């Protein structure tokens, strides 16, 4: 098989017959890795939306920024007057802030999972979506990290959690799950940022080569002098491999430890041995939903139709369906044992859920997390319909938020002593702070997409080099090959 020396790598072979041409055309339409275009053209598609801002962008930008500022002002107000301005009171001393904390940590799980686990398993549809997912992780985790500090009340004392020799002569106690949490989250957040950055170096070099003026200086500094030499690729790959295999267990540990914040207490509804895996699956579930939401919004607003295709939403949809089934399995485990045990406080809590004041929450959760995904996601037509996927992923996130509401304020309202039962009264400050937190993630995300390439182009390019079609009988079949 002779290859002409001056034909670019991305040029397609000339089909031998009309029938072969039709098959090739089909593959090009369906698969990104079999539809290569010249890198300059692809890079243009990535950079164009970064540089050209529409009015819609500015409107969204200003709205999100305003909501974030509102959150900060509310936070200062709350610090000034104390946590008494919120609805936190006995017995629900943990409520919306901790719900947000768990929710955003959960969102932060899918990014690394998609990027690391799918990289380890060499799943092809990860290529164009891995960075979009990693960035969801980074910003969601950073936002989650603010909530324990907001919840402190005396937020300026958060550094007391850090172990360093201090004038108070007090060391933090690692007996407490809260400190395991701090250690795990700091590990996960810092390593997720480094992971995303290592994988971004070749793309930063690409932007450096395509930009001029100040932008060029900006990318030249961040690209650290990346040239794409064999040594650089080799070292990058080793580092990515280390991260891939180290960050997956860390990811599992982070949400397991978050679950231990609850499971280590003897609170009805919390003291469960299945909480660790149940939380991890829940985190992946809501996180995969959030990544789907982000991908749909990216595709629609940044016109990334070339990169984000049906195959990617199809793959993510299957992933979401599997996670929904796994979540249902763990939730049933978590539900059944206390239901069977009939401990008095558990019975009261379960009655609240099935026909008490919390019933609307509970049934919405079951519908959004189980009924809706199971009823729809089996169909490829629905998985590749962006409107339907947006709705399902949104509902999954609503359902998972409600799940945390049920675990935290609703469970806390029922304990062993009936005189101490209560319902959490939601108030304005925590509502504003919650809205602000969601806006913060969105705000940072759209800001990021304006400065950095959201598609890891070198991964797509690598995939397009190594993927070809092979003839088996009458059909051209995509040959799967990834160099090890």
């Amino acid at each position: 098989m002779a290859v002409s020396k001056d034909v670019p790598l991305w040029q397609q072979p000339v089909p031998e017959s009309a029938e072969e041409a039709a098959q090739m055309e089909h593959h090009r339409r369906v698969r990104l890795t079999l539809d290569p275009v010249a890198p300059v053209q692809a890079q243009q598609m990535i950079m164009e939306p970064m540089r050209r801002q529409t009015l819609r962008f500015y409107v969204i930008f200003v709205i999100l920024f305003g909501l974030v500022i509102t959150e900060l002002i509310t936070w200062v107000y709350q610090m000034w007057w104390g946590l008494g301005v919120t609805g936190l009171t006995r017995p629900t001393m943990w409520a919306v802030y901790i719900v947000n904390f768990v929710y955003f940590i959960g969102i932060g799980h899918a990014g690394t999972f998609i990027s690391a686990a799918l990289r380890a398993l060499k799943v092809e549809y990860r290529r164009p979506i891995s960075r979009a997912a990693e960035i969801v992780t980074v910003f969601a985790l950073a936002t989650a990290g603010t909530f324990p500090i907001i919840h402190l009340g005396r937020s300026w004392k958060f550094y007391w959690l850090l172990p360093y020799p201090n004038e108070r002569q007090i060391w933090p106690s690692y007996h407490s799950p809260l400190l395991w949490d701090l250690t795990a989250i700091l590990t996960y957040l810092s390593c997720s940022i480094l992971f995303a950055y290592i994988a971004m170096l070749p793309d930063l070099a690409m932007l450096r080569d395509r930009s001029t003026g100040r932008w060029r200086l900006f990318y030249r500094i961040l690209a650290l002098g990346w040239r794409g030499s064999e040594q650089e690729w080799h070292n990058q790959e080793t580092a990515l491999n280390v991260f891939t295999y180290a960050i997956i267990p860390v990811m599992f540990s982070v949400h397991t430890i978050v679950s231990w914040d609850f499971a280590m207490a003897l609170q009805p509804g919390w003291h469960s041995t299945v909480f660790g895996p149940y939380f991890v699956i829940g985190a992946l579930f809501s996180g995969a939903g959030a990544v789907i939401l982000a991908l749909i919004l990216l595709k629609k607003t940044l016109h990334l139709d070339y990169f984000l295709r049906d195959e990617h939403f199809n793959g993510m949809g299957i992933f979401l369906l599997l996670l929904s089934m796994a979540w249902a399995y763990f939730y049933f485990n978590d539900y059944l044992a206390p239901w069977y045990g009939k401990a008095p406080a558990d019975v009261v809590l379960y009655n609240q859920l099935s026909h008490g004041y919390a019933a609307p929450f509970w049934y919405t959760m079951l519908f959004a997390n189980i009924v809706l995904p199971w009823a729809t996601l089996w169909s490829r037509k629905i998985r590749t319909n962006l409107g339907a996927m947006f709705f399902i992923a949104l509902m999954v996130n609503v359902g998972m938020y409600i799940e945390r509401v049920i675990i935290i304020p609703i469970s806390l309202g029922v304990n062993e002593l009936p005189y101490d039962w209560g319902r959490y009264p939601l108030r304005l400050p925590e509502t504003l702070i919650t809205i602000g937190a969601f806006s913060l993630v969105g705000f940072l995300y759209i800001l990021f997409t304006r400065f950095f390439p959201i598609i890891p182009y070198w991964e797509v390019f690598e995939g397009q080099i190594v993927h070809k079609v092979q003839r088996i009988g009458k059909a051209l079949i995509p040959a799967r090959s990834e160099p090890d």
Partner: protein
Amino acid sequence: MAEVQLLGLFYQPESVAGALDRLRALGITDDKMTVLSMAPYRPEMLGRPKPKGRVGRIALFGALFGVALGLFLSVGIWLLYPLHQGGQPVVPIPPTLIVLFECTMLGTMWSSFFGMLGENRFPKFRKTIYDPRITEGFIGLAVEADRSLSDNIESIFWDHGAHDIVHDQAAEKTDPKQRAFWLSVGGVLIALTVILGLFVYDIIRIPFPTNMANQESIAYLQGPRLAAPPDAVPVQGPVLIDGQPATDPVPSSPDSIQRGKVLFGYSCQVCHGPNADGKSPIAGFFNPPPADLTSPQVQQLTDQEIYLVITNGFGLMPSEAEVLGREERWDVINYIRTLKK
């Protein structure tokens, strides 16, 4: 012997592999040639020796450093600050494992990141031969050789279908902007750490009442507390009347003393210290410091007086009524009585 640097740009990996073979025949060794590309081509595709990197080994060392950090955070801190908590031993194994795991992973990943930077000599301050067309998908073959071979190399490049050849006579220039930027980043980080340290170690004190004990506290739905009239006798909880005990005392017995010892460990030891002599790790944070319970001043108090201190609190000591039941307070008193010097 003047060196020259040449960079050929090719479309196909096969052309590069062919050119590499010819260049080797010319006497240029593999370490003088570098392939630059937009995607990671495997060394086998180009017939090149496998690059050697130490990132993996550096990560291993980082893991060991992480283990050491984890051991310090768990075992080290528990030895520095021996606080019994939740009925756990001073150095409990399961929580230690959790902290060890997280720190090991932290060390592994951070060191592999910095290992990658170091092995690639990032950030690079030197301008080396390069062409932006590499990121357009061309494969670059950079050769460093004697000036006399320059024409031979060029003809090999053209033979193998090079798209273009870039010459760089004045290679190895430094990039002042890169260096200035990274040096200033380092400077700002150091300065921030120092400034933070000034506040953290109270070298600069902010006159701001940040401790709960120094602030007025108003409970939920409660108005500001009014000062008591000068002749009022504020009484909350039980008081000493005629030397009568507030509740029936529990007679001292080995069982009661044993219970008292355990309860002391939960509720009192944090401040009064494991030997009840007022020497706890946090004692220095109180003024006046927690009382030495073995001292004559405490031991000469009547049982009823000690009972009221536990019930109502005293000075900076809060009331323990919520955590110790009536009989339990007597158990603690019986235990304290055994500590008399």
